[in-house]
């Protein structure tokens, strides 16, 4: 599924990061890599952007950007 489809509190593992090169690289540089465990902490009150927890850091992404990331929900 896509990261943008995850609900608050869900955890998942990143499978593939799509999108243009700049976006992909920026997401990677913030520590979101293939195989990284992520958790969706919450969506903003207007449903966009969303807040992720990655390696203990809190990072916000726009929903359209999260829609470029494929994840596998586990447990």
């Amino acid at each position: 599924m896509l990261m943008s489809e995850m609900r608050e509190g869900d955890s998942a593992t990143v499978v593939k990061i799509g999108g243009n090169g700049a976006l992909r690289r920026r997401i990677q540089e913030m520590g979101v890599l293939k195989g990284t465990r992520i958790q969706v902490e919450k969506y903003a009150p207007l449903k966009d952007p969303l807040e992720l927890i990655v390696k203990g850091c809190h990072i916000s992404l726009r929903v359209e950007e999260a829609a470029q990331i494929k994840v596998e929900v586990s447990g």
Partner: protein
Amino acid sequence: MTVAEQTEKQLTIALAGNPNAGKTSIFNHITGTRQKVGNWPGVTVEKKEGHVRKEGRDLRIVDLPGTYSLTPFSIEEIVARNYILDENPDVVVVIIDASNLERSLYLATQIRELDCRVVFALNMADVARTRGIKIDADKLAELLDLPVVFTVGNKNEGIDALLRKAIELAESDHTPHQQRKVKYNKDLEKAIAAVQKVVVADLGDELPYAARWTAIKLVEDDKIVKERLLEKPTELSRQAFEEAARQRQLLMERFDEEPEILTTDERYGFIAGIIKEVHMTAIQQRVDISRNIDLVLTNRFVGFPIFILFIWAMFQATFTFGEYPVAFIETLVGGLSSGVNSILPDSLFKDLILNGVIAGVGSVIVFLPNILILFFCIAIFEDTGYMSRSAFLMDKIMHLIGLHGKSFIPMLMGFGCTVPAIMATRTLESEKDRILTILITPFMSCSAKLPVYIVLAGTFFGARAGTVIFSIYILGIILSIVTGRLFRSTLLKGVDAPFVMELPPYRVPMVKSLLIHMWDRSRIFLKKMGKIILLGSIVIWALTAFPRHVNFSMDYDAEIQGAIQKYDAYRPVSGKEMQQGLEARRDQEVNSLKAHKAAERIEQSYIGRLGKWVTPVFEPIGIDWRGGVALLTGFVAKEIVVSTMGVLYAVDDEPDALERALASSTLTPLAAFSMMVFVLLYLPCLSTVAAIRRETGSYKWMTFSIVYTTSVAWVVSFIVYQGGRLLGYA
């Protein structure tokens, strides 16, 4: 080394690190108040530098922009990387958030790849410790072959040790060993080696950077490095580019990924290996106060109300508490001018000092308290970490205009005063976002324009004045949205800056850093604005005061004398009560004569002539030469529009005199509305123009803003006035 030799030595130490890693507090502790804030050449990124003496050396400390990587996407990253590459600082201190080792090491690894001398500061060691994170510093130092020091930046711990290590390393002949570098996978290494061979063979001594690093960057298709190589004879770099393109093609076929994605992956792999050896505990989730605070502050239901409350409080503090010191400063300025008035004899020089310098600079310096308070509030927002939450909340709305969530605060401040609003755009990281925000902020109707609306709307719209003024504000907001969307899709296309933003843990701000923050920005306001405003005020004064000799339509001085004598003649024969009535009538007559004299003098001054000369421009939008002159003088400050109209319509000091004069003039309600529209939109005041010049770092954007706002003002007023006439309004 002798003492003399030691003192000659100046070492440059650059501080690098992630945003929120505590770089600023370390910088503040090292340099204290002896710091210089400026801009990096050619860009609007803030550059901070400080000089200190430690261990007998002069240290120049340069604070590089906070970045997550050295990939040249943002202007900050380019600035940081170019500084290290081109200026060759003696040591680069990388400040690492110890509680966030993995991500911090990404930047650190990239810096190490630049072949410079690096010291690691494992900062916020105390936070890491309380979270159960233990880092084996000796092991880290050994693995990466560089000195590692624990620091607690906000408590000033470990800073001396850090500087000692940095000096030690700078004066050693230590060069990083090749085998301590990031090793990429076999295919990548093969590609790098192939490109490196061509690079060395063709460019050899001409090479501006280390060969391996250049090869890696060519494989990554790094734009800046390519540009730099193109400065060399093209024949030579062409070969290298071709080889790099070939290797990239091979890698893409093999891995189905761009090589720069592969190298990022590999660097993180290298980091993971280090983490395994030095990190004692698995990274836990943030189960701390910060997360709980966020449950409230970015809550679905109360997040926005709380945000609005904070913004309201900031507004109140800035523009209400600011009033008290403003009144005080106004009294001071008033005292100064009456002092000058009584000391100096009447002369041109006195006029210049009083009406040019003191009035001009005084009208700007009264903003200082507001600016100090505003920047203090913004510093609190930034230093606590709330600023990124406000961007998180507002991003959806701002994104519709093509802006970043952080643009909201500057735009909102624009309703108060455009100058601090434009200075508040510094919180935006992307230069494009910043320039776009600067270009549309002047359309947020500032408080100085309000007196103009009140006079015009109050005179011509009576009970509907409130609605009319409200519609003016709405018009400004609509035009800012239109402008935002227009520029985002044309001049300032912003596809390259994704909204990937860290929400750092909340922190209790340090008073010292809040004060430094506030003072830095206010000082810039005073210094730079001061010069331009002084100059501008003098020019406007000169245009108003010259030519000195005016051919009045009658001898006003004689008339005034005559009026006084006429009333004085009655004095002996009248009773006390009657005398008071006579005096009042005398004063009225004298004041009216004086006002007419002043009106005639400004009509014939250069600015009056200028106003008449530009009448053809203002006529189609329903503004006569008086309005034109008032608008021209409004360039100094918008409030002046009202006082100039007062002078031009020759009104005296009585309340509502201007309103009555306007009502009996040829001005129609439609023309008044057109003028209000023009005042809303036309060129920003002198202080704002100075701020735009400063914050965009270029005359180009300043000129663009002046031309754009004034053109929009004219076109919209034209549509309003001519359209209104077609519809039958007069």
